């Protein structure tokens, strides 16, 4: 007996006025699944996020968030199930401390003070932001504000996290922090839908790829098989990330795409080779 999907789009079409953005889009996300939403600029990815967050209603088809029809829900209701983070989230912080901003979401959900504190602390810790918890958000550099905004979404402890380009402007160390935090949440059953241009990050953090092309779903498959394949990525405007390309070029057994696995295979294969 299959569990109710956390998110299910059924034949969704949407246009901004006369401009079509999505056409007959259908897919499901199961609890704990980690999904990348990929595609060129303008392919419709941000539109999907807006529909899932309840900011737009589909022209055709239905967006199911669990067993709720998103059409019947206001964004603030959907916040109980969906934690969204939009682009340039660093401009949306408003509380006087990072902690106060992160706790805003759980408090708005009407939770008791102790639960609010727990969720806030967990979110801050997951992103190593506890040292900055008492700072004014606008005293922090933009990268840390972005992490604070992500913490705000995590603190909602939703069944589904929908993130639009969460790693723009972050360096490698901070991206690794985000990967770790998201993998931990996913292990606890949270589903992820992440828009990203960074296929390296996608390969490290996510397992399934939905590729949009001009508003339509062009590919829905496991990332491991997709990211190393330049011939299939090229027509979609995508480029294999270097580690996946390396794995394919050296024909490593199993064609791993995550850094730790590639490193392991490299070592293994090198050990087994005759010394020149």
């Amino acid at each position: 007996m299959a569990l109710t999907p956390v998110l299910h789009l059924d034949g969704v079409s949407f246009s901004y006025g006369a401009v079509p953005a999505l056409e007959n889009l259908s897919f499901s996300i199961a609890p704990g699944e980690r999904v990348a939403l990929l595609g060129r600029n303008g392919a419709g990815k941000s539109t999907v996020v807006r529909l899932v967050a309840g900011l737009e209603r589909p022209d055709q088809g239905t967006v199911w968030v669990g067993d709720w029809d998103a059409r019947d829900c206001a964004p603030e209701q959907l916040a109980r199930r969906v934690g969204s983070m939009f682009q340039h989230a660093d401009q949306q912080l408003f509380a006087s401390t990072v902690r106060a901003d992160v706790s805003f979401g759980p408090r708005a959900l009407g939770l008791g003070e102790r639960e609010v504190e727990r969720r806030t602390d967990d979110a801050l810790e997951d992103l190593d932001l506890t040292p900055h918890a008492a700072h004014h958000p606008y005293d922090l550099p933009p990268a840390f504000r972005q992490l604070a905004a992500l913490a705000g979404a995590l603190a909602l402890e939703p069944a589904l996290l929908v993130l639009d380009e969460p790693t723009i402007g972050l360096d490698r160390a901070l991206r690794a922090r985000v990967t770790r935090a998201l993998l931990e949440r996913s292990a606890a059953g949270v589903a992820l839908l992440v828009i990203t241009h960074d296929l390296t990050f996608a390969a490290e953090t996510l397992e399934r790829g939905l590729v949009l092309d001009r508003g339509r779903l062009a590919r829905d498959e496991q990332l491991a098989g997709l990211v190393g394949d330049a011939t299939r990525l090229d027509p979609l405007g995508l480029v294999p990330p270097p580690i996946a390309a390396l794995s394919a070029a050296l024909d490593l057994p199993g064609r791993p795409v995550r850094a730790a696995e590639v490193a392991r295979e490299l070592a293994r294969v090198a050990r087994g080779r005759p010394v020149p």
Partner: protein
Amino acid sequence: MRSLTLDHASFWYPATASPALRDVSLEVVQGEVVALVGALGAGASTLLLVAADLAPRVIGGRLTGTVARRDRSGIVLPTPWTQASGMAFTVWDEVAFGPANLGWPAHEIARQVDRALERLELVPLASRDPVTLSGGELQRVIIAAILAMDPGLVLFDEPAAELDAEGARTLWRLIRLLASEGKAVLLATSALDAIPDVADRVVWLEDGAVRAVGTPDLLADVAACDAGLGTSVATVWRASGLPPPYPLTVAHAVQRWR
């Protein structure tokens, strides 16, 4: 010929005790692309502002040492929506904004704008309102707008941040083209894997000071990998325990593997 020379330059932001740049000496020659790499806050953006004569002239602060510029400079900031004029209703007008401010004659403006639009593949968007563009499209418009002012020294601060893979590829190719036309390019970027194909030299900034200067091979050094500034291939090679020197790119790795 040297386009930009910094000689023991140090810079303090207004009302700040510690310098954002310490004793930086650096030169960029016409026809070359120099990439600035470093952790967040290492000083790359500040260095670009100093090179563009915006610091301390416009943003305040204190500068010691000397900065010498041979050519007019143009800088592409990482936030295209603030660099847009807000006063142009079409992409064409937006790109023409800078040249018009420079007081050039109308036919020269038209020539530069048309050329810039073509280079950035913006001709189909020429009559669009900039306000309706996506972040990536707007970034390309701003790049076109800066290039239309025909700077001899072109400064880029994270120009690929908003771009998708195809947009980034076009950008790196364009940067090489600019260098081949004799412009000097100084580029701050965290897209480490693109640097071997784009840059002639790499300057590693740490805490406002120059830690190392070299060819892109610098990004395969043990030190760079440990600092999180190695290319993906070099970093994973190091992680595998294989001995240095580490390959810089997939192509190098394939060669090494044979």
